């Protein structure tokens, strides 16, 4: 692993109006790793993705890409480096699935948006990866929630960036599709990409993440390889529920299970 991170958050804070949602955050992301960011609702995870993708600018601190502030790379440069799969996507017009996935090639195209053979190959590959081949010529406005999510993910893959950010990418997928996609993300990371996923699904994270980032109330609680971060103590602190972690022979990863913490013990969970 190189010693300087590709993407780093340096002492960043961000407020929504009066509410500070990200507080003095310091975090570095290295290539070739798949990070899963987890934490309770309102922990600031999605805002961190917004900061990393330059959709929002931190009030204090900065976000560096290869040592330079995000803004210094320009919109076109950033779009060639960082892709974001937002949690929800609205399809207002009857583009076909292939057309929407092709829009992922936008940063690589000239002003009139003609796809070259390389662009078409990237689009076909992305369609294949998400098993959308049979839907390629269908209109996106008639898709189910899971299909629509797969279109967004395929579009993000078609962008072919070294950094991929994903907000709850498996929330609408069924089990097989979710496993399949997490496998795809692992392959991307093993191919050298930096992948950051915000997810509520800790069992998927426990199986597929290289690194886990725990946030609570806008602050970093812990970050590191899943072996050191997926501990009952940390999980209990982050999620305010009693947790157990056990090795899982079946998946080859870890299994995380929760039960409700006793009411009185919610603040200091273990005697």
């Amino acid at each position, binding site marked *: 692993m190189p010693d300087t991170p590709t993407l780093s958050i340096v002492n960043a804070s961000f407020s929504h109006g009066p509410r500070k949602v990200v507080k003095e955050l310091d975090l570095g992301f290295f290539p070739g790793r798949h990070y899963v960011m987890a934490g309770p609702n309102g922990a600031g995870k999605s805002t961190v993705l*917004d900061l990393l*993708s*330059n*959709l929002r600018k931190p009030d204090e601190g900065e976000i560096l890409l290869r040592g330079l502030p995000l803004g210094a790379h320009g*919109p*076109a440069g*950033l*779009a*060639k480096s*960082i*892709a*974001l799969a*937002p949690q929800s*996507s*609205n*399809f*207002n*017009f*009857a*583009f*076909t699935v292939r*057309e*929407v996935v092709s*829009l*992922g090639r*936008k*940063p690589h*195209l000239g*002003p*009139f*948006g003609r796809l070259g053979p390389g662009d078409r190959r990237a689009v076909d590959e992305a369609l294949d990866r998400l098993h959308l081949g*049979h*839907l390629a*010529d*269908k*209109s*996106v*406005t*008639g*898709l*189910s*929630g899971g299909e629509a999510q797969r279109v*967004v993910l395929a*579009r993000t893959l078609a*962008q072919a960036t070294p950094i991929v950010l994903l907000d709850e990418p498996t929330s609408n997928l069924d089990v097989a599709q979710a496993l399949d996609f997490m496998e795809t993300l692992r392959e991307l990371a093993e191919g050298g990409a930096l992948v950051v996923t915000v997810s509520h699904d800790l069992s998927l994270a426990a199986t597929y993440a290289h690194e886990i980032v725990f946030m609570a109330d806008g602050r970093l609680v812990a970050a590191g390889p899943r072996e050191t971060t997926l501990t009952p103590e940390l999980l209990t602190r982050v999620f305010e529920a009693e947790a157990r972690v056990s090795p899982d022979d079946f998946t080859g990863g870890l299994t995380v299970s929760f039960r409700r913490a006793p009411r009185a013990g919610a603040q200091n969970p273990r005697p």
Partner: protein
Amino acid sequence: MAETVKDNQGQAPAGPPGGAPGPILGGKPRRVSPRLLGLGMALALAAMGLVSLASGHMPFSAREIFDILVAWLSGSGIDLPENRVMALVEVRLPRLMTALISGAALGLSGAVYQGLLLNPLADPYTLGVSSGAAFGASLVLMAAMFMPPEVISFGPLYPAIGAFVFSSLTLLLVIALASDADRRLSPTSLILSGVILSAILSAGLSFIKYLAGEQVSSIIFWLLGSFQAQTWANFGIVAGFFVPAFLICQASATDLNVMTLGFKSAETLGVNTRRVRLTLLAAASLAASASVAVAGIIGFVGLIVPHLCRLLTGPDHRSLLPLSALGGALLLLAADTAVRAFLPGEIPVGVLTALLAGPAFLVIFRRKMKELIQA
């Protein structure tokens, strides 16, 4: 519009792909090739142009039209009565060209508004551009009534300037109202601001009409929209705005496609959504208000044409923008030829387009509602 047949049988929307509803909401869109549609409309436009030049109070044969145009373009003399030549090249041709370019401007601006506002039912009205233009023109027309003739020698260009100034002001105000703290422009707040300003301007317009008293007819006639007595100068005004606006919009067609995916997706694909939105709003609005300025308010062209083109060839703005311009030109030329040469009296063309396109709009609206309910 046989291609737009609906084949939804009330299937559950989450059902198998085969059960997806019709072309607006899903299923395999039945599309016409944009090139084919473009070619068809260009041919229809040429034919319509010939019909338009030939018919009317003073009929011309195709041969005469050809001879006069060739002589006029090459600057050589022609063996025909002066009044016939003048009638064609100084009256009928500028009127035809102004109707055509105004239709193109309205079609283009409608397509751009619909893409920017993510609303297939948006048009120059939605943003208050038309109301602003109408208010400005009426203000000038009214001022002219109260001024002694020496002060304001009343020409047709004055209401045009009023229309122009006020539609631009309205647009600036709409953008200012719709910008949130992050200086983002959301489609919803743009439409809401547009509708609110439109309502205020309409009230202002009613007040002007009330003040105008017995002379209200000149205002009303202007508001209804007409291509009577158009000059080459008028054509020049609209073309001067339409051509750059078209080039600007066409160069941003892919950005417009990307922006239909929403703010986050568009920004992370490298599109500066605020800049594109401002540029395209300004370009489309200037083109639309240039058309309003010379011909008054002609509704529904900007609404119906892009909508039909999208149904036929799909929503890709790279082809949708030129097709909408072409379709707008065709529709408005046909409508103007009809009111000038084939319908009794001369009803204002805006009335005809509203009468024809209004019901078509209702059909589309109903179909859309049905699909939304089924989804």
